[in-house]
């Protein structure tokens, strides 16, 4: 029967401890609030006890492994977050901070800050246009590359993933050079006689946003594709073959068989991309410097400007960072609700 067998196994594993390990057993029982001293393993011991101890010891081991990371995260992440929250309730410039009156003053201020509202709008333009295009592209590419009969698969895969290995600043600078008035893109378009005079890509709101979105697509599509490729390896080929045998075309197979099985991964990438886009900084900073007239600036860029470039208003900047946190949290919650149909 299972019961005695398990007890036996446990006892077997406990025994090597028994000589040197008595202290352990003692301390474990004491922390558990069981006053009775541990008796040497024997027939008198109720059957459940060794099992329980073992489970407890395993729990303890788990905690021991968790604690270093947990303490570090609490200390390096959560504590500053709490401090930032208190900071967001204060107002003033530089180090001359006082408690705001009312306490939520900085949060109320956000709603009347035209530049903040503009950066919020910009960020959502990037989010709404770029993330879906990127995820769909990544999904399509992943499917194409997953084809067993494709030649040079490794090469394609590397080529598409490679942009990810490029630093955010360096690729932004390259894009800025390419889209300069006398840059490569204008030269090519003029060489092909598609345009008569250079397009001022980064100097107009629409085209500046377009260039940022293009940059983001180039940089991040491969990254998401790798997630899908990994998930595709886990899909049982039999399900796809079964669909084929049942007469489903490639699109139907993809849509009704592959995509549903990729759902958890799609959810993960959607949340990660949303999170990343809302905190977008490097592209706005390096590619367009937020221009023209703030119309391509992201929220994080504005936050940096408030803290380090203008008169340092750290209270307000902290409130802004909490607004970003809130937006990320709400969007992630919605995506989980919509996307995750487990249970």
């Amino acid at each position: 029967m299972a019961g005695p067998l398990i007890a036996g196994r446990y006892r077997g594993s406990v025994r090597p401890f028994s000589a040197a390990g008595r202290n352990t057993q003692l301390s474990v029982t004491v922390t558990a609030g069981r006053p009775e001293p541990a008796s040497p393993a024997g027939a008198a011991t109720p059957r459940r006890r060794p099992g329980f101890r073992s489970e407890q010891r395993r729990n303890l081991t788990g905690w021991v492994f968790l604690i270093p990371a947990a303490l570090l995260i609490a200390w390096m992440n959560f504590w500053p977050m709490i401090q930032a929250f208190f900071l967001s309730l204060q107002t003033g410039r530089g180090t001359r901070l006082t408690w705001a009156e009312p306490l939520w003053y900085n949060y109320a201020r956000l709603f009347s800050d035209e530049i903040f509202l503009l950066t919020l709008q910009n960020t959502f333009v990037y989010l709404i246009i770029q993330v879906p295009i990127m995820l769909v592209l990544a999904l399509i590419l992943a499917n194409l590359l997953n084809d067993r009969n494709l030649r040079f698969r490794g090469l394609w895969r590397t080529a598409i993933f490679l942009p990810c290995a490029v630093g955010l600043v360096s690729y932004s600078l390259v894009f800025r050079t390419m889209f300069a008035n006398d840059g490569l893109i204008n030269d090519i378009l003029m060489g092909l006689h598609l345009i008569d005079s250079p397009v001022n890509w980064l100097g107009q709101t629409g085209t500046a946003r377009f260039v940022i979105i293009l940059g983001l697509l180039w940089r991040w599509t491969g990254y998401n594709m790798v997630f899908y490729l990994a998930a595709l390896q886990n899909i049982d080929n039999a399900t796809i073959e079964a669909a084929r045998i049942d007469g489903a075309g490639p699109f139907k197979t993809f849509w009704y068989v592959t995509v549903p099985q990729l759902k958890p991964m799609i959810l993960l990438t959607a949340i990660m991309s949303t999170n990343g886009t809302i905190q977008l900084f490097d592209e706005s900073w390096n590619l367009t410097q937020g221009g023209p007239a703030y119309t391509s600036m992201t929220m994080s860029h504005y936050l940096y400007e408030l803290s380090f470039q203008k008169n340092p208003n750290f209270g307000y900047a902290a409130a802004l960072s909490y607004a970003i946190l809130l937006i990320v949290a709400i969007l992630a919650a919605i995506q989980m609700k919509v996307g995750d149909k487990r249970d």
Partner: protein
Amino acid sequence: MNNARKLASLAVVLPLALGLAACGGGATPTAEPGGSATAGPVEAGTLTAWAWDPTFNIYALEEAAKIYEKDHPGFKIEVAETPWDDLQTKLTTLAQSRQTDELPDIFLVQNNAFQKNVINYPDLFSDYPASGVDFSEFPQAVVDYSVVDGVNYGLPFDNGTAINALRTDVLKEAGYTVADFTDITWSDFIAKGSDVLAKTGKPLLSGQAGSSDLIMMMLQSAGASLFDAEGKPTITGNEPLLKAIDTYKQLVESGVMVEVNSWDEYIGTFVNGAVAGTINGVWILGSVQTAKDQSGLWEITNLPKLDGVSGATNFSANGGSSWAISSSANVELAADFLNSTFAGSTEFFDTILPSSGAIATWIPAGASSVYSEPQEFFGGQPVFAKVLEFAAQVPSNNTGAYYYEGRDAVSAAITKILNGTDPATALDEAQKNVEFAMQ
């Protein structure tokens, strides 16, 4: 000891150790035990400094140290190259976390950012000792940048005097000389510039779109500013500003000025010879001179002045920087060092001028013969003497603590105006944004 306990103790000690390492990472190299306030406790005669340009201000510091060392054996200076943007970020971070002992003894501050930093973070700065630097030996307009409540916090270093640099060969092709562009107004400049453009195909100016540097220079040339004496923004109903923006608009629309999107593109326009002139602080000559093939083809003159604005002149400034002494510095040594070099040694300025083009703001240095030497690159023109002559005539302007807010709001307004928004409306909006930022 058993494994679990070992692990448990490790779990407690490890984060602490890592934490100590994290905290200590920055602190250990500079802060020696004893906690003395000076940053360079190793040797009595060592100063630490932050500056950003190895061929310009860092070079000047090192030359100054050599001269100072002659009378003070054992004196040394350790310069950490820190670009201005990083320097500002470092200052803010150190002030905000109250780690002022991490500051160097002296650091260079952009003149336009001086007020902002002193007002927001007074605990970063030491004022200059009362006996010592004679600030009357500097142009008032330059000293004013670093005076807060009557106290001097900065010793002016480089000269941000604005110049109008022009390609003589292009002008000649169109039948003009630099004299035709001297002591003129902006409407003359646009008329002649259009002519040059028509005859040679070359614009006379270029600039970064969304940058208001040129507008700010025009404003200062008329002694105007974006703020009044109390520091309140005066962007709406600011006559010189409206005039400056109107001029800028005409420049762009006539094609006499081309807008580009980044600094490198801007430098590229005249280095590549696509544009036949530029207006900026005199420090731009460093970039102009990188075009070796254009040697002998450049000359400088003063700026055009605004039409119909009272108090308008042909002189202005853009940029420039001053030396600050930090609150954790060896103040006496730092002040004495700066006073006996940057504010007291003609020998020093004679050394740095020919090799780096660092033009003194210290007026007595201008008497030196080095300044009146003709410069080959500028067709034999004694450029440096000219700049000193301009510098003395630059009107003072009031930057205030919110200079960058004002400047950026006006930049945004210009972009909108060029896209067709009515100037008054766009400036009202800018005024509102600055007032909002000041709340």
